[in-house]
Structures are given as structure tokens and as C-alpha cells.
């Protein structure tokens, strides 16, 4: 039996890897189409209730609704209070509060 050259095995595995990478694009496209109904549902709730924020971090009110928060809210508990909610340290203040 003829032995496969190392380079042939390399190119074959690289081709399989690249094909899997292309499959990710196909999967993303498929999920996008499949998720349209759920997206419409979310938009309908946002429209009907006038929501302004995503429900990602519920630990503090300025992380639950960052777009509606004041700039000083993370530090309002007492003078010189340090920010102590983990998720709040992950993002910057909204741009409309960062300006002059």
C-alpha cells in the first residue's frame, strides 16, 4: 500500500479546517434567517413598552439601564465611594454623558 506523504495529509487537513470555517458562515446565515421571528417579537415588545435597554446586567440600576443612567450613579452611595459592581467596571459611560 502506498504511504500518504506528510504534505498531502497537511493539505487535506487544512482543506477540512477551511471547509469547517466556511460552514460557520453558512450556519450564521441560517441562524439569522431562523431568528427573524424572534427578532420581530423582541422589537414588538420594545415598540409596545418603549424599552430603551437590553436586559444584560441586572445587578445595579445603572448597569440594567446604562442608556438612562447618570454619569455619577456608580459613585452615589457615599462620598468617595468606589465602583463595586463587577459588570459596571466592564463598560464605559454612555457617549452622551462623556462629552463636555
Amino acid at each position, binding site marked *: 500500500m502506498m504511504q500518504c506523504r506528510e*504534505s498531502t495529509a497537511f493539505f487535506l487537513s487544512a482543506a477540512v479546517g477551511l471547509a469547517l470555517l466556511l460552514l460557520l*458562515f453558512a450556519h450564521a446565515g441560517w441562524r439569522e434567517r431562523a431568528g427573524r421571528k424572534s427578532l420581530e417579537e*423582541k*422589537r414588538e*415588545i420594545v*415598540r409596545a413598552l418603549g*424599552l430603551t435597554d437590553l436586559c444584560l446586567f*441586572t445587578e445595579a440600576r445603572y448597569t440594567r439601564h446604562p442608556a438612562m443612567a447618570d454619569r455619577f450613579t456608580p459613585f452615589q452611595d457615599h462620598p468617595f465611594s468606589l465602583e463595586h459592581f463587577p459588570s459596571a467596571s466592564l*463598560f464605559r459611560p454612555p457617549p452622551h454623558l462623556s462629552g463636555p
Partner: protein
Amino acid sequence: MNRAGRQRNILDFTLSSLLRRKGRNAALVLVYAFVVFLLSSVVFLGLSLKEEAQSVLADAPEIVVQRLAAGRHDMIPESYLAKVREIPGVRTAKARLWGYYYEPLTGANYTVMADENFPYGRKSVVLGNGVERHLPPMVGRTLPMRAYDGSYRFMQIRETLSSDSELVSSDLILMTVEDFRDLFRIPEGVGTDLVLSVANPREVSTVARKITEILPDTRPITRAEVLRTYDAIFDWRGGMIVACMSGALMAFIILAWDKATGLSAEERKEIGILKGLGWETSDVILMKFWEGVAVSLFSFLLGILLAYVHVYFGSTSLFEPALKGWSVLYPDFRLKPVITPYMVSVLFFLTVVPYTIATIVPSWRAATTDPDTVMRA
């Protein structure tokens, strides 16, 4: 021998050389793939959340008007509505009533909202799926809510919002306007804020400016600002993404630096022998180039594939503690996958190219010195 044949022979030799040091190279691929995995997971998560925010909040109110008293957000009188409606361009304006409720049974914070079109009447609530999931089993279909005076209101749970909408509604409790005012002692005639729709989207900033002129104690927040907030939160260059990515980037820099600063004695000896056997410097560099390509390409592909599975099939379980923080209630949602050729190319050039270059430089140094010196070193 033609050029392709020469390249294949060198590649065959490189791969056999890599396979001779199986354990060491497998460990290298695993560490490298893990770094790519971390970087890609953060990028996938950030881009998906950013895109989700942009598409879901595209129908958010065009302008939200908050009242500020002594620098703090305060309740807004409904009498302001009449003044706002007089501004040319304003199509509709209404007051919203919403706030937060701390649930002592679970320790979770909920967002309570009054719905003026609430279909179930008083003493009823509609819950977000996250709230329903976290309720203790003893609660059943009646939710006791502690009012401002310490007494309890027993609310009938009439409906649960779908799990598909958790990203916007997970912690919501909806009720009638009357129940909301009763629960938190909010007097008639005031709201939490005002929401406006504007006939011409190009007039939004003009309307916002006029609001601050007519009502100086208010602050308008436009939809564009809301969207920019989420852009900033999940931006590549700041906030969460940089915080998560800096660790992975540092690990990668250490890996590449270690590779670039020198070769092992065994590798030097191998280069010396090859040079002694008549290999050209260009052949040695070509061999090292193929070695870099083989290691980095497989690590890159492995890392990016695992990151996709982690974020879109595994609900980002590795990052959950960081994202969850101290939250008791965390939404359970499936993100829409976002993968673009641009993003893959950026990740490729950030990881594969520096590593490949880092493997060539020390080999070039070794290959240009006398074989005898290299072998004796």
C-alpha cells in the same frame, strides 16, 4: 526539480521534523489555540451583542425626556407633556411609569413597568421569563409584592413573556398604571419619564434642543444616543472587549516573544546539520516558514471553531461569571451568530502573521552563521 516539488519536499521534511517533537508541538498548538479561542470568543460575543442591540433597539423611543432635580433623575410632572406636544415636529408624547423592585425572597432586582394597555386588569402581573424562572416554587401563581408601606400586594401571575424575548424582557414585571402607583406610592400627575415620537427623524436633534430650552430642568436622550451607548459598551477599542481581550493578547505576546527570542539547542543543531549537508539559507528559512504556517494555521482554525461553538452553542459559559457579576437574575438567551470575512481576516492577521514572522527571525539568524559554530554552540 520544479518549484512546487521543492516546496513539497521541504514541507514533508518540516512536518516530519515537527512530528519528531510530537509532545512539545502538540502542547504549543493547544496553548496557541486557546489564545485564539479566547480572542475569538470575546470578538464573537461583542459583535453579536452589538448587532443584537442595534437591531432590537431600532424601535426604541425616538426621544426619552428625564427630569433632573439637584443633579439626580426625578419624577417628571405630566404637565410637561402639554409643553412638549407644542413643539413642532412632535407626533406623540406620553409618560412612562417604571422602576425597580428588589425581591427579598430571591435577592433579585426586577424592572417593574406600568403598561397602559395592560389587558388583565388590577392585581395581575405579566412576568418576564427570567422572573418566572427565579421564583421559588412555593409562590405558585400568586406573586406577593412588598409595597412602600411594608404591606404586601398579592398579584395574580397571568402570563409569562416568551423565552425568545429574554434579551429585552427577562426581568420585567408588567402591571396596570393604578397598581404601579399603589405599590410605590407614586402620586397622580407624575411619571418616571416622557417618551416622544417625532414625525421627521431628521428633526430629532432639533426637537431635543428645543426641549432643553423650554424645560431647562430636563434631559432628553435620543434613540441615536441609546444606540451609541451600546456601540460604546461592546466596542472593540474600549470597555468590556478590551478588558477581556487584554489578558488573551498578553498571553499571545509572551508566546510569540518566547519564540522570537531564540531557538532551542536541538533546533540550532538541526539547522547546523542541514547547512552542513548543503542546504541554502533560503531553504532553512522556507522550512521555518512552513513550520510557522503549520502550527499557526491549525491553532487558528481550532481556536476559531471552538470559540464559535463556545459562544453560539455553549451560551458563553466561560465568560458567564464575569458577565453575571452579582446579578441574581441573568437572562438566558441565544445570540445571533455574527461572522464576517473582515473579522476572520483581522483575527488571522493578529495571530498567525506575528507568530509566523516570530519563528522565521531567529532561524534566519542561525542559518546565516557558520554551520560549525551553530553546531558547537
